[in-house]
C-alpha cells in the first residue's frame, strides 16, 4: 500500500490527523486550480472547506482511492460548477461548456539564454495562452498537476479519449508553431550574422 493509500485509509477511518494532512498537502493545489475557474479566493476557500467537510461526513462510504489529488480536484470542480450553475439560474445564462479556465502563462525569463531563444519562447507563450480553454485545462492538469490522461478524464468529466485528444490537439498546435517559425527565425538570425 502506498503512503497515499494509507493516508486515505486513515482518513476514511476517521483520523483527524489524516484530514489535517490532506488539507496541508492538497489545500494549495486545490486553491490554485479553483482560481482558474473562479476569480474569488474567498469563494474558493469556502468550497475547499466544504469539500473536505463533506468528504469527512461521507468518509465511511468512500471507496479506497490510490490517487488522492485527482479525487479532490474532481470534488472541487463539481462544486464550483454547481455554484456557477446556480448563479446562472439567477444571474446569467452561461452553460457548463462555458466554464472558464483562466490559466495564464508567463515566460521563465531567468532561464532564457539569448535573444533567439527569447523570441522563440515568446512565440510559444503566445500560442499557449491562446489555446482553447479546455485544452488549456487538460494541459494544466497533465503537466503541472501530474495527472494521467485517465485522471484528467475523471476530473473534467469527459471520456478518456476526449481527454487524450485535448492534450494531443494542444501539443500538435504548439508543435506546428515550431518548424516553420523556428526556421524563419533561424534564417533571420543567420541573415543578421551574414550581413
Amino acid at each position: 500500500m502506498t503512503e497515499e493509500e494509507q493516508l486515505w485509509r486513515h482518513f476514511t477511518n476517521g483520523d483527524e490527523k489524516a484530514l489535517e494532512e490532506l488539507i496541508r498537502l492538497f489545500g494549495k493545489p486545490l486553491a490554485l486550480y479553483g482560481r482558474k475557474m473562479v476569480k474569488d479566493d474567498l469563494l474558493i476557500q469556502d468550497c475547499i472547506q466544504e469539500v473536505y467537510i463533506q468528504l469527512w461526513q461521507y468518509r465511511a462510504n468512500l471507496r479506497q482511492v490510490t490517487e488522492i489529488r485527482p479525487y479532490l480536484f474532481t470534488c472541487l470542480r463539481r462544486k464550483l460548477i454547481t455554484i456557477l450553475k446556480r448563479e446562472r439560474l439567477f444571474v446569467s445564462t452561461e452553460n457548463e461548456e462555458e466554464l472558464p479556465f483562466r490559466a495564464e502563462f508567463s515566460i521563465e525569463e531567468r532561464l532564457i539564454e539569448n535573444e533567439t531563444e527569447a523570441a522563440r519562447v515568446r512565440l510559444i507563450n503566445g500560442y499557449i495562452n491562446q489555446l482553447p480553454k479546455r485544452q488549456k485545462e487538460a494541459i494544466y492538469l497533465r503537466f503541472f498537476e501530474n495527472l494521467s490522461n485517465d485522471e484528467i478524464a475523471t476530473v473534467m468529466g469527459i471520456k478518456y479519449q476526449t481527454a487524450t485528444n485535448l492534450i494531443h490537439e494542444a501539443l500538435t498546435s504548439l508543435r506546428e508553431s515550431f518548424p516553420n517559425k523556428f526556421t524563419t527565425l533561424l534564417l533571420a538570425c543567420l541573415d543578421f550574422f551574414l550581413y
Partner: protein
Amino acid sequence: MKIYFDYKVQDYLADESFRRWVLDGGLRNQDSAWSRWLLQNPDYAGEALKARDILLAARPVEEPFEEGYFETIRRETLGAIQANRRNVRPLWWQAAAAVLVVSGLLGWLLLDKTQSPETVVVAQRDDVVAPPDTSAANTVFLQKNSSDVILPVALPDGSSVLLHPGSELSYRHTTGGTREVQLTGKAFFEVTKNPSSPFLVYSGEMVTRVLGTSFTVTAYANDADFSVVVKTGQVAVSAPKEKMETAAADLDDQTTIHLVPNEQLFFNRKKSYFKRKEINQRDMLRYVPDTRNVYAFEDKPVADVFRQIGMAYGLDIDMEESLFSGCELTTNLTDEPLFEKLSILCSAVGPSTSFVVKEGRIRVISKGCNQ
C-alpha cells in the same frame, strides 16, 4: 535510459524529472543526468529541447494568497467537523438555553430574562475588539427585544447587533473557533473581522455564514420566506439538508448561495428554495442602516457626531451635551461595527469618555473633552 529514444515532446513534458531538470537550469548543470544524456545523444535532443522551450514558455502566473489563507481552511474545516461531532446543533441551542434559564449558572451573563435588557460596553477600544476569550467558549449570551424600538446589542466578540422588536438571539463562541448566533426575528449584524473565526447565524432551516461584514437577517418564526440583505462584504447562505447523501458524487448537491452587497436573498422555507434579486438603494435602507453620512467628520461638534451616528442607526444616544460645548472632532470611520465606532469616538474625545448600553439605550459618559 533506453526509453528516452522513444520520447516525444509530450513524454518529456510529462516526465517530472525532466521538468525539474529544465527549471533547475537545464544544460547549465552539465553534470546532471539529463544534461549528460542529451549531450551524448544529440540526435534525440530535438524533441527534448522543444519540450524545454514549451516549459520555458509556460510558467503559470499565480498571485500569492492572502496571509493565513490556508490556515483558515484548516481551522474552519476542523472546527466544522468538531462541531458536527456533537451532531445535535439545533437541539443543543434549546438545551443550553433551558439550562441557563433554570439555573442561571453563568455569572457573567448580564441578562436575566425577567429584567430589562442591559449590556455594558467599556469604551477602551482594545476591550471591544479583543479576540473572543477562549475561556468563554461554549458560554451562551441571550438577548430578547420585547420592546417596540430597535435594541442595540454588543456581542462578546465585539460585533454589534441591532435587534428589532419581537426578535430574540443567543450567541456562543464554540471550542471549534466559530461564532454562532441563533436568531428568531430580524437583526442587523456588523461583524468584527476575524478570518479565523467564522460567524454563523442560524435561523430556522437557514444558515448565514460570514467572516467580517454587515448584513440583515429577517427570519421571524411565522415567516414563509426568510430574507438576507448584505450591506458590506460577502456572506454565504445555505439550507443544510437533513438527509445526507452517501456518494461523493453528490457533494455538490448542497445549497449555498453567495451574496454580495445590493442583493437580497429570499429563502422559501416550505420548498427550501432560494431566490436572489438585486435591491436598489431605497429598498436597501429598509433593511440596513444608512451610514453613508457618518464616515468622515471634520471639525464637527462632538454632540453632533454622536447624534448623527445615532440617527444613522436609528438609535437615540443620550449624553450631557453641555460637557461637549466648544469641542470639535475630526475623524474618519469605515464600516466597523457600531460599538467600535463609538469606542473610537469616545477615545478621540478623551480618556474619561466612555459609553454604556442600558435598557436599550446608548449613553455616553464623560467628564468633558480631553479629560
